[in-house]
């Protein structure tokens, strides 16, 4: 009987595989390494998944918890609300860092599913930002500000991920990093101008 309960063997295999694929790359990771990580023999692992590729397919189905999409606009956008969205996106990235890294590496290796997943996540975050900017700016301006904010977030977090690798979570939680990111986002969003006037 295959153990499909949450937290069961199947889930543990997927989590281990997601970490290893994200860290070392899909091609460089062997089924044996994944199995070893959860204390199984590779024969036992093949009982749950027929191939390494089938594990990857199943990883794409894993739910991603939470995220900034749950923040809805309330009244006119404030600097404080913008911080909240950025913090939420940051928490989301920290929580899903192995998954994110796996998606990005797989996209560069031509995986269509990974590309589609990133596109979907990207448009959800973009839309959340857009909706918020709409409370303060006309549509065309809001769209560009949302895009710019998202691009700054991507640049900032990817750079940190490259520099810190497995220590990303600690680095992204650092006060200095957050303050710098917030200040930059505020300048980009036009809040810094308002303060200076």
């Amino acid at each position, binding site marked *: 009987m295959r153990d499909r309960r949450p937290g069961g063997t199947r889930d543990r295999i997927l989590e281990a595989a997601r970490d290893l694929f994200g860290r070392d790359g899909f091609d460089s990771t062997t089924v044996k390494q994944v199995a070893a990580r959860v204390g199984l023999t590779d024969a036992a692992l093949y009982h749950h998944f027929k191939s390494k590729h089938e594990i990857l397919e199943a990883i794409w189905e894993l739910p991603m918890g939470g995220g900034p999409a749950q923040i809805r606009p309330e009244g006119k956008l404030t600097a404080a609300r913008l911080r909240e969205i950025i913090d939420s996106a940051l928490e989301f990235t920290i929580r899903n860092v192995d998954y994110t890294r796996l998606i990005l590496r797989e996209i560069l290796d031509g995986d269509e599913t990974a590309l589609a997943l990133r596109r979907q996540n990207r448009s959800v975050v973009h839309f959340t930002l857009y909706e918020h900017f709409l409370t303060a700016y006309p549509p065309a301006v809001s769209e*560009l500000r949302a895009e710019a904010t998202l691009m700054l977030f991507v640049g900032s977090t990817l750079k940190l991920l490259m520099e810190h690798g497995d220590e990303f979570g600690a680095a992204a939680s650092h006060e200095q990093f957050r303050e710098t990111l917030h200040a930059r986002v505020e300048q980009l969003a036009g809040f810094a101008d308002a303060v200076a006037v």
Partner: protein
Amino acid sequence: MVAKEVGLSDPAVYYYFPTKQMLYTALLQQPDYGKLPLDDQQVSRPAIIDQVMQLFGWWTERAEFGQMLLREQLANDDASVAFMSESEEVWSANVTAPLCAFLGVKGEMTAGLLFELLAGVYWDAILSFGAATRESVSQPYYQQRVRGMVELAIPKERPARP
């Protein structure tokens, strides 16, 4: 495959680059941005924006190089990650001083903001467009969009002294 592309035998390539890693490291050359708008223009907001767009253009022209770098950087290859830090220094050398002349105390922060903003645009384009990155980013519509984002990042006036 590399040997075939340049019409050499495998041993000939190994003569120049004993390992693939050495060949890769030799490719990590910092940009020579050539002549830039601010080399002979007064510092002004439009000239700074032109300068930034020209720096970004250098990277757009080399999207395949960027794609290769991104792959290695995501694998936390030390040489490739160090290359990014050096790129930021070369970038800063070309934008920080004019930004400080224009914005005063906010200049340095704005230079850092622009680097991360455009790195984000670049990486996002590579991830979204793959082999078609250079072509997609060169489109007038896309260039206009990037310019618009750069404009958002640079305040219109020098902030009042606190």
